[in-house]
């Protein structure tokens, strides 16, 4: 590593991508944004393997609450969870806009999250993310923070916490 450079480097280390609508150059978190009941949620892109249209979900009798069943993702059986149930919302009919987000919990385990609608992938500046005030214990376990960004309120979900301790 070249250590002769004595110029201060902080504030300069963000990569220059084509996100030129904002002049902000600080570190960003790239997220997939989706909606549930008209609220916008975000999950870090690095946690997501893919987004699928909803095909045949095979129900599994006797599964835990919120588990819709299993799907076949190129030969791997993946559990699908209704993310509405995770946020204590009533479930809703699956329609053309519904998607399954395949989340990687670790190298071997993946889980599918059924969401109402997937919007886009966005870089959210880290300084726009505020941690949720720790008043609502149960819900905030899943929530990493809230971002106010470009007229949107984005609820960032911490999937690791969401599925922590689940076999």
């Amino acid at each position, binding site marked *: 590593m070249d250590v002769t450079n004595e110029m201060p480097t902080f504030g300069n280390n963000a990569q220059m991508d084509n996100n030129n609508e904002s002049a902000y150059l600080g570190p960003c978190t790239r997220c997939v944004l989706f909606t549930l009941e008209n609220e916008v949620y975000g999950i870090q892109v690095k946690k997501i393997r893919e987004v699928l249209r909803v095909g*045949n979900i*095979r*129900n*599994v*009798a*006797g*599964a*835990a609450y919120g*588990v819709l069943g*299993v*799907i*076949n993702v190129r*030969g*791997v*059986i*993946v*559990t699908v*969870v209704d993310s509405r149930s995770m946020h204590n919302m009533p479930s809703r009919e699956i329609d053309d806009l519904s998607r399954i987000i395949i989340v990687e*919990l670790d190298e071997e*385990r*993946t*889980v599918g999250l059924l969401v109402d609608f997937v919007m886009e992938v966005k870089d959210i500046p880290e300084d726009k993310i505020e941690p949720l005030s720790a008043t609502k214990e149960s819900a905030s376990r899943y929530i990493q923070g809230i971002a106010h960004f470009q007229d949107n309120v984005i609820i960032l979900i911490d999937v690791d916490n969401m*599925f922590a301790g*689940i*076999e």
Partner: protein
Amino acid sequence: MDEEILQDFLVEASDLVDQLNDQLADLEKSPTDSDLLNAVFRGFHTIKGGAGFLAITPLIEVCHRAENVFDKIRNGDVEYDAVAVDVILRAFDVISDAMEQLNNGARELPENDPQLLIDLDALTGKKVEEPASEAPSSTESVLQLPEGVDPDGDMSDEEFEALLNQRDGGSSALSGSAALSLPEGVDPDGDMTDEEFEALLNQRDSSGATQGASAALSLPEGVDPDGDMTDEEFEALLNQRDTSKPTATPVASPPPKPPAPKPTPKATPKPSTDGKAKPVTKNTTESTVRVDTKRLDDIMNLVGELVLVRNRLLTLKGKNTDPEDLANAVANLDHVTTDLQASVLKTRMQPVKKVFGRFPRVVRDLARKLGKKIELELEGEETDLDKNLVEALADPLVHLVRNSVDHGVEMPDVRAAGGKPETGTVVLAAKQEGDHILLSITDDGKGMDPDVLRQKAVEKGMMDEQAASQLDDKSAFELILSAGFSTAEQVSDISGRGVGMDVVKNMITKLNGSIDIHSVLGEGTKINIRVPLTLAILPTLMVGFNEDSYAIPLTSVQEIFDFNPDKTNKIDGQVMVRLREESIPLYFLNEWLAADRPKESYRGDKVVIVAVGNQRAGLVVNQVNGQEEVVIKPLGVMLKNATGYAGATITGNGSIALILDLPGVVERFQ
């Protein structure tokens, strides 16, 4: 310690340890076989070499001594007698323990039991009290007389001192510090000048910096060490210190060389300097598998074929294709995938030898402890078995073999009195039978008395006398597989610990295997275990409910017939079906699997009679779709604990079928 090299070492050394295990057992039978002796010698030597490279001192110490012992034995100087066997086996245990610890992520090994080292040394006939002879034996460094010294002549103080220094250097290299040597011509007894002291200090520092490797500094020729040191000379010394590398010969050291201690090839870095808190990666022992490169080449070749077929299909796609071309391509695809499947399965196969290898030792130790004479014969060691099965079978087999040795084979005097040879035989055999592997454990011991077993069952309240007396002999033997059934008058520490026979039975059942017992009183017992060749592929019966399909492991299915409500009775709330003078409980799977769609009538449904453990049950299903071999896939997260499922599989049309776990299903209905 370099993690990557360590992993390579572990893989290699674990193989060597396995080999040594076999060879040591063989050696006991033919202690003079020179090929075997050489092989064992090389085994210890190679492990020592690897351990030396990684500076695993406790391992080096033991291996080195064991190697010395075998060197003597193969030269005929020492005999491989019972005493030697015991000591060597102890040493071997230390080595295999060390390997296990390293495999489990430990990076620091405890010090060796000094008694073991002494015993090993004693075998080579070495006087242990004499430290001078021990140092070289433990570090392999040779003490050298300074050049030009007459070894027969009187030794001057300086020379002796130098030798002592060497020795200290050699032995201290063990503990990690390097040897310091006095510059040539310095009188060790004379007063030390500041410069000399300085130079020595420098030496020490530099060798510490190079992690214990011994680097010797020497004064340039012609410099009077006692005289004042010029700046240049001092500079030169400093340069030497900086440039000397662990094994580099001292720079600018002119002949005659100072008696620099030979850089010990197995320089051992101080544990404290290098054993820094690395994230300890815990490896399960069998996370890797060795595959013949030829098999890999075959697979690569088949994958190449697969790509060709794909390309062909892609070009055929969409155009006005000749149906014949398409049919050809699909047929080709069929071929390639079948071959590929077989080849990939083969990579998972391992010889059953991997499990059998440990038994000679188990039997030997046990027999000695019990004072019995037992010979173990292994048959069909080269039979290939799925890797997971090899691992899963190890524990049940150990238990069964221990049982044979402990309960089966009698004491030598009893055997002699009964007209049998004093030495009992236990045969452990494996062979392939179609798509199954048959493992058998046979002993020529006292066998089992079915009447004693029947009586025991009544005593334990498992059944009444009448039921017990109706059991045929085979069923009586199978009683020993039930939980809490022990006929041993007293539980010994051999058979009383670990798994019981019911656990063995459960483990075998879990592997979709079966276990049966033959025994003749006074002649011996034979236990047969049948397991499928692979765990990955399961023959199943596909059953359906509307569009959902489920798979029942075929090994459990006994018969299938139409559901007839006239032939059922409701006994104590449980619907039973009469089948040839027997009532079998019926479970309506629909109530569980499609609870939201209750059915009015089950007329037209089928009953599948399955064996679950020792009982039978009838599962009422919508339709039976025939037999299918399925690839078992684990259910995803959050479903691991759902009872009643053994996994899932993907059927021919791409949909998912759930595989039923019968004990779990029955549990759900009870």
